């Protein structure tokens, strides 16, 4: 006999509102339906009421984890409409901020995944490391969550002493590689808890149009930093980890390996940080009417912005945001079908969902 089991709107692990309504037979999930919108804030409408400076501050608040990514994508779109190209130093600083944010996001996610596996010590270790990543972000930007780094034509703050930041990053890299990476790549406990559960096949990943680590864990080689480089990524050497199993373990492996690659990019960017200005310095920005599109590889996958401007307007006429979780979340239905109920919190968490981004 089948029964309906609602999970949420309070998620058992992520403390964000979302609901998964599962149809179960015994302990097995037969089908599921997702409900979002519990935190809908109407940010796209609000953006139409803000001028080109205010809208950056607004979009930084779409997400508390990848806040920098949202302003980066927005500024890139607005720069296309304003005909501005940030100076090389600004592009490198954007890469540094984006990779630190990826580190922060992946380490935080690793902690939550560890907690869901019953590995509480690892959870504490990950959150301890996350604090250190935030220390680096604070050293650069003065802030720990919303960094206010991006502006039209560049960045707001310089990195006057890249060597000291590099030292912090090297210490951090050693700690992460010594603690998180071995546990997630070779521990038997992690393997037994994560292997062969929540499988998203390659075909289903293509059909659902998933992005980021969720796509790369199902064998899709897609990373905008490689295929459509922005900021200074074309100057960076790095690998894109791809796994083919499509299960929770594959998603975990991809993120663990991405941590190593992020550290590699950070070292290169800090080593090669070019001299010069950090923004174009244009006091007045004039936008041509039209629609510009921009996208960035956020920690969870592709963030897409479409920004429209009318003639002689101070405000955008439309800002559309497609976040990675919005693309990935429908695939959760296919991941949980056939899974045990007890595994579903970990399966849901394995896409590293951000409900704040999704609800906007």
């Amino acid at each position, binding site marked *: 006999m089948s029964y309906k089991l609602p999970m949420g709107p309070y998620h058992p692990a992520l403390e964000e509102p979302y609901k998964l309504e599962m149809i179960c037979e015994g302990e097995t999930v037969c089908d599921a*339906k997702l409900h*979002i*919108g519990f935190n*809908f804030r*109407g940010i*796209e*409408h609000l953006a139409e009421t803000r001028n080109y400076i205010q809208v950056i501050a607004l979009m930084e608040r779409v997400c508390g984890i990848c806040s920098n990514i949202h302003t980066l994508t927005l500024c890139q*779109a607005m720069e*296309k*409409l304003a005909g501005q190209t940030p100076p090389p130093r600004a592009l490198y600083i954007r890469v540094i901020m984006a990779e630190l944010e990826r580190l922060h996001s992946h380490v935080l996610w690793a902690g939550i995944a560890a907690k869901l596996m019953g590995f509480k010590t690892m959870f504490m270790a990950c959150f301890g490391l996350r604090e250190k990543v935030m220390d680096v972000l604070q050293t650069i930007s003065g802030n720990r969550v919303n960094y206010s780094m991006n502006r039209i034509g560049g960045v707001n703050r310089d990195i006057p002493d890249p060597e000291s930041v590099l030292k912090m990053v090297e210490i951090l890299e050693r700690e992460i590689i010594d603690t998180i990476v071995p546990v997630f790549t070779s521990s038997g406990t992690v393997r037994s808890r994560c292997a062969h559960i929540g499988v998203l096949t390659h075909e289903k990943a*293509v*059909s*659902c*149009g998933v992005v980021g680590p969720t796509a790369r864990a199902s064998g899709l080689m*897609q990373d*905008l930093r490689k*295929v*459509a480089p922005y900021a200074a990524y074309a100057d960076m050497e790095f690998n894109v980890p791809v796994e083919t199993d499509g299960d929770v373990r594959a998603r975990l492996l991809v993120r663990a390996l991405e941590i190593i690659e992020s550290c590699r990019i950070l070292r290169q960017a800090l080593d090669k940080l070019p001299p010069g200005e950090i923004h174009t310095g244009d006091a007045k920005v004039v936008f041509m009417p*039209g*629609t*510009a*599109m*921009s*996208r960035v590889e956020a920690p969870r996958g*592709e963030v*897409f912005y*479409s920004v*429209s401007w*009318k003639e002689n307007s101070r405000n955008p*006429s*439309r800002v*559309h945001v*497609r976040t990675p979780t*919005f*693309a990935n*979340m*429908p695939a959760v239905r296919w991941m949980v079908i056939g899974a045990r109920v007890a595994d579903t919190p970990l399966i849901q968490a394995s896409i590293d969902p951000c409900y704040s981004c999704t*609800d906007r």
Partner: protein
Amino acid sequence: MNVSETIPSTLQELDPGPERIGAHWFSPAPMSVRQLAQAMKNCSARFVTITAYQLPRDEGLCLEYVWDLDGALLAFPFRLAAESIETIYDICEAADWIEREVHEGFAIDFNGRAYEPLLLREGDRIGVNLREEVK
């Protein structure tokens, strides 16, 4: 990258030109939205999103369908004669949530599909968030 070499044969006679403000634009869209979805599926392009907006001076609504083809962003604007357009959900599964979101935000109907509430709750009024005349 030369986009003309990778776009499906049904679109090859149209040259989108170089990337302009973030995408290669096929404007006006060269075929029906369903034919387009099928052509994109045939060439393994990844569906990105649909951006809806109101045109100035009461010129109606526009939907921009966006696909990624080997790292190139392809944008296809469709001006709506009425407040409806055919769904592509049955061809492109990835379009499900964004069609529902556009329906709720702009009160645009995607013909040939059923809706379940996405961001709104059952019975909430559609079009309130993003349509000028409904606000």
